[in-house]
């Protein structure tokens, strides 16, 4: 059995700590921060990790200060937050649908956000801020539609996934139509946005993202235990005193919001929401949604993927979504094979 330690304070509070999970979270956090420092240091004006840290601490030259503070730091911080938000959203969805494939990218949210953003770009010629708003609205509307359509005396695993696939197919039609309506410049912008890109992000994207994450990620952490019981099935959860539909509604709401706000900032970056929770589960070897481990793993994944996308193809800087997209498809197929061997699908 697992060694789970309970820490009790004199005041009667008790916190259960799984040492392996805690260690995994700490190591992943260190990895994410290290990758972030490397990413800040890479680009046309390369800097050694030591220089980056020194600059962050206030000991850099004026040029280094400018590059780090104004150009690269916001990009990397947004990447960390987007990765964390997507991964937590994915972890919640996968737990609620009790299905490793029940992630926002499969359920059609990415397509919903894309339709929202494309409508703004193509039909109204809106700027980045309006595009983000369109993406939020599209993602939220899709989330509500999928949930309501999958509802039939409660929402159950595979119906949610299949309804999501149906909605996604419809929205894909709308996306393709909007791309044909655009002129080539807007079409390029639209396709870049749909692929998911961190280019051109600055502090104005960072603060709203931070605000949403600062509220919703702790909320999701707090609901970790009821959610783990929900994973055992509705009946078992009722028996254990969980308010099933309320827990599910609150967590669906935060998952949809986290996904939408991350998508609004950087476009629909696939694969992170799908894979981070599964990888986190394998690293911590603990059941349940593993919200904390998923968050740091998602942040690390996105930063590493961005580093690969911007530096691995010579002078072609690809959007990060190309890297995560190709990895995601391969991962999905692998998941399907292993799930089939395990007899779960």
């Amino acid at each position, binding site marked *: 059995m697992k060694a789970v330690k309970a820490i009790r304070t004199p005041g009667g509070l008790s916190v259960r700590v799984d040492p392996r999970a805690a260690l995994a979270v700490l190591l992943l956090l260190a990895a994410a921060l290290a990758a972030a420092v490397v990413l800040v240091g890479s680009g046309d004006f390369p800097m050694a990790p030591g220089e980056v840290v020194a600059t962050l601490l206030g000991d850099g030259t004026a040029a280094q200060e400018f590059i780090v503070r104004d150009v690269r730091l916001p990009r990397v911080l947004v990447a960390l937050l987007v990765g964390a938000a997507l991964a937590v959203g994915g972890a919640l969805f996968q737990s609620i649908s009790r299905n490793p494939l029940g992630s926002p990218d499969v359920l059609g949210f990415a397509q919903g956000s894309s339709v929202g953003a494309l409508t703004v770009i193509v039909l109204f010629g809106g700027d980045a801020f309006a595009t983000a708003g369109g993406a939020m609205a599209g993602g939220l509307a899709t989330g509500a539609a999928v949930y309501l*359509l999958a509802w039939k005396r409660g929402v*159950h695993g595979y119906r949610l996934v299949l309804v999501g696939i149906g909605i996604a197919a419809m929205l894909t039609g709308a996306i393709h139509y909007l791309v044909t309506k655009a002129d080539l410049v807007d079409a*390029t912008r639209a396709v870049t946005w749909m692929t998911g890109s961190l280019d051109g992000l600055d502090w104005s994207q960072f603060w709203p993202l931070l605000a949403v994450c600062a509220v919703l990620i702790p909320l999701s952490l707090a609901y970790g235990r009821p959610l783990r019981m929900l994973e055992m099935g509705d009946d078992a959860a009722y028996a254990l005193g969980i308010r099933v539909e309320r827990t599910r509604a609150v967590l669906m709401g935060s998952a949809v919001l986290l996904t939408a706000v991350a998508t609004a900032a950087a476009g629909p970056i696939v694969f992170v929401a799908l894979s981070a929770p599964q990888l986190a589960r394998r690293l911590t070897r603990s059941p349940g949604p593993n919200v904390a481990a998923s968050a740091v793993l998602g942040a690390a994944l996105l930063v590493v993927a961005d580093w690969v996308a911007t530096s691995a193809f010579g002078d072609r800087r690809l959007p990060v979504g190309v890297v995560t997209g190709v990895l995601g498809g391969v991962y999905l197929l692998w998941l399907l094979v292993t799930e089939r061997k395990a007899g779960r699908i």
Partner: protein
Amino acid sequence: MLVDSPPEQSADRTAAASAPEPGGRHALRAAGLLLAVAVLILVCVASIAIGAKPVPVADVWHGLFQNTGTGNDVVIRDVRVPRTVLGLLVGVALGLSGAVMQALTRNPLAEPGLLGVNAGAAAAVVTAISFLGVTSISEYVWFALLGAGVVSVAVYVLGGSRGATPVRLALAGTAATAALFGYVNAVQLLDSAALDRLRFWTVGSLASADPATIGKVTPFIAAGVVLALLIARPLNAMEMGEDTARALGAHVNRTRVLAMVAVTLLCGAATAACGPIVFIGLMVPHLVRAVTGPDMRWILPYAAVLSPVLLLGSDVVGRMVARPSELQVGVVTAFIGGPVFIHLVRRKRMAQL
């Protein structure tokens, strides 16, 4: 057998397959098929007459049979007729491939668009256009066939062969589609000339129809149609399950290979001609099955007649709602088909998956 059909129907079906049926039902089905053909002819006339420039039916007649080169004659001969013929061909191809796939995988959600076969063809065509400098359909139809073939086999093996559930098949298709369209996006971003050409093709449209395209895809679709009709009887046996099919003397492996070849020919050629179009192959066989019952020897001809009705009808609607421009047929079918798919998913039996 469909996953959602009640068990007593399969016994009924065994009886239907072996015992001669009362002549009355045959006559009724044949009459229904004739009626469907009549509807198809009406839709074809509508497809020729309705568009950015409305043409009176009398002029349609004139353009078709007494061509004297008037403005309407030119529109009809050079634009509307090729478009209608291509819609007919592609409709037949998509409907038959959907019916064959649903029978082969015994899965009500099977459909080439949802299972990633179209995406496979699209990825191959994108590769051909962007990396190999291929520009004409006569060359890239081969790539589309290759892509469709590879992906249909891969998805079938991954999600479809023995013990398939509708969910696994749909997920295997979604996974393949996600990976392949990720690749398509990446190529388009690196090559904006390819983006400009491909964004019209990937939406699924009949607008670019011309006689050369039709000439190129017709042989593939014709071969696929013949093959699909030839395996109707073994497919009937396959729907009862592989063991039963073997016991009934069907060649299970041969049927499976022939069915995959038929699906590849039909989907590859249709996708090469007008881009990926989803849901036609899902909706029509379901509709048809409600009318004809489970016998593939009736389902296939009905699907072949009614699928172009749906496709051409969607195309006409797309031309009417967005005048003076048009809504591509792939968009219209996605918006008609999505709700049908969700309805199927919500049905009682599917909910227990």
